């Protein structure tokens, strides 16, 4: 099972820390950031979820860590530190050594994340050849070991398969094998199960859980699935419209949310055993980038909004050493939210 939040208090240096990350479209003079002032950290061996609706900036944030942002956007402020190295200012060679080495990455769509003209064996071996300088034959042998590690039967023979000869779940296993090829300390998984069937999703999560335990792997999981979060993660970072709404240990999110958006999300999860009740929804829609409100970005949709207070920009407030919220009303104790019923 998950490694609970017990040993967090020993204040070791976090493995990954993102501080005040702001990502902008350049040129737009008064564009509020696509991602603004995002701060969170991942400790060694910890699983952190980055959760939010489509377009909330969670994928951009995860791409920014390895410098994979599309050319149209850029990081305009903040720092991303991994294992003591500032990834935003280090030179390209250093960044290349980190990509695929101590940090592995898995993308959303396995069918388009693999090169269709290379065998899967070569694609996994490539990582080891790049980082460890292994010869092709040696690296291929290791790739075979990795393939069987991620649960692909007949691994030796599968090395010579091309991606299109595999199913989506198999392809995602190949991606994971490539991501863990050099024993990374951190795995960034950008919606690794979204494109897969539900049964395959469960298998892939099970695999990731095994790998976490065996390799002492920290995972940054980008997802919009609260079930996956509850199942897999220690900490959760809830993002809304480019801001971090709330940052908290996972169980406390469910029983004691500290941002109206988290509360609304939890209320919107369909519950088993409550037939014929209508689905709870959050009124309105997510503002599109460039039309973010001045103050709290959730304010127009928030049932707890107090006009003159919530229209002012909200700062990231610390509740206790492991919980942060961007809601000023919650931070001041003015508003107390209801969580899921324990039991």
């Amino acid at each position, binding site marked *: 099972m998950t490694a609970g939040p017990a040993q967090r208090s020993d204040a070791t240096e976090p493995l990954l820390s993102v501080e005040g990350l702001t990502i902008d479209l350049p040129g737009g003079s008064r564009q509020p950031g696509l991602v603004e002032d995002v701060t969170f950290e991942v400790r060694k061996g910890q699983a952190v979820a980055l959760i939010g609706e489509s377009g909330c900036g969670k994928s951009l944030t995860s791409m920014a860590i390895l410098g994979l942002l599309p050319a149209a956007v850029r990081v305009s402020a903040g720092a991303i530190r991994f294992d003591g190295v500032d990834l935003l200012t280090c030179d390209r060679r250093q960044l290349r050594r980190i*990509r695929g080495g101590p940090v592995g990455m898995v*993308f959303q769509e396995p069918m388009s994340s693999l*090169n269709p003209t290379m065998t899967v064996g070569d694609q996994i071996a490539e990582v080891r050849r790049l980082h460890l300088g292994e010869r092709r034959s040696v690296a291929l042998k290791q790739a075979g070991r990795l393939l069987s590690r991620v649960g692909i039967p007949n691994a030796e023979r599968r090395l010579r398969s091309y991606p299109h000869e595999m199913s989506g779940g198999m392809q995602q296993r190949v991606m994971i094998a490539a991501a863990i090829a050099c024993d990374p300390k951190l795995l960034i998984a950008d919606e690794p199960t979204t494109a897969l069937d539900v049964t395959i999703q469960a298998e892939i999560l099970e695999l990731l859980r095994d790998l976490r335990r065996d390799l002492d792997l920290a995972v940054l999981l980008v997802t919009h699935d609260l079930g996956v979060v509850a199942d897999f993660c220690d900490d959760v970072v809830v993002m809304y419209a480019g801001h971090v709404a709330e940052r908290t240990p996972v169980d406390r999110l469910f029983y004691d949310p500290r941002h109206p958006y988290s509360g609304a999300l939890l209320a919107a999860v369909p519950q088993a055993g409550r037939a014929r009740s209508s689905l709870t929804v959050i009124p309105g829609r997510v503002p599109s980038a460039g039309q973010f409100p001045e103050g709290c970005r959730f304010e127009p949709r928030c049932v707890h909004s107090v006009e003159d207070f919530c229209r002012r920009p909200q700062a990231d407030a610390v509740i206790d050493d492991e919980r942060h919220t961007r809601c000023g009303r919650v931070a001041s104790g003015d508003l107390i939210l209801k969580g899921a019923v324990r039991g």
Partner: protein
Amino acid sequence: MTMATRSARPRHVLRSILRRPSSAVAVGFVVVLVFFAIAGPLVYPHDPEAQDLGNRFADVSLTHLLGTDEFGRDVASRIIQASRIAVVAPLISVGVALLIGLPLGLWAGVRRGVVDSVAGRLADTILSLPALVGALAIVAVLGPGLVNAMLAIGIIFSPGLFRVVRGATMAVAEETFVDSAVAIGSSTRRTLWVHILPNIAAPLLVQVTILMGVALLVEASLSFIGLGVQPPDASWGSMLKAAYTNQFHSPFSVVPPGIAMVLTVLAFNTIGDSIRDAVGLRRRT
């Protein structure tokens, strides 16, 4: 999502080309041509440059399979000698075009921005010249001769190739596997050559084979007007020119170089077409 290049595995492509009769014949023809080009001196029936002025414009006979030309040289031997140029000339010019167009196209396709607009405008400029006129201008500067002519043709071809490479690269660079190559620590150069190039190989190969045929024609045209191959070397273009000058003495002599040229260009185009079909690309109108 699923790209046309998905089926573009080399073995699969080769097999489907050879299975089709027309392209199998074309491949066979090119193989024979290359054999003649390499084995030239071993298979000439006569010395292609030996003159026999007493025996000008001889008719087709067993000693001279295709007759003799205005200096009494054996036409069959000269056709074979010229096959070397028919192979080398397209190779040089398409090679030059690749050398210029491929790296620039890859670079512009990935970088876009300023690189792309500068290279693109330059390509537009060259493309606005008719190929033969452009080649003439370059040959006028460099001086006549086969290598200069082929260089000129290569330069004229490069923008077309640049266009094809750039477009295909832009499409492939959007794919997630390019991001995932970067995410495993592959350098930009490695990503271009190892991950993008094989995925644009299909349209590139089609373009290259078709350009080979065009290159042969342009070379023949330049040789025809005396700016390509210089005497006493034989080229199908210069042979055609000589035959044309003497058409009242020997109307048959335009036939051998003409047919050799037509067949070769046809073979290149047929191969290009069947590669295109094999990899599932369709020419859009």
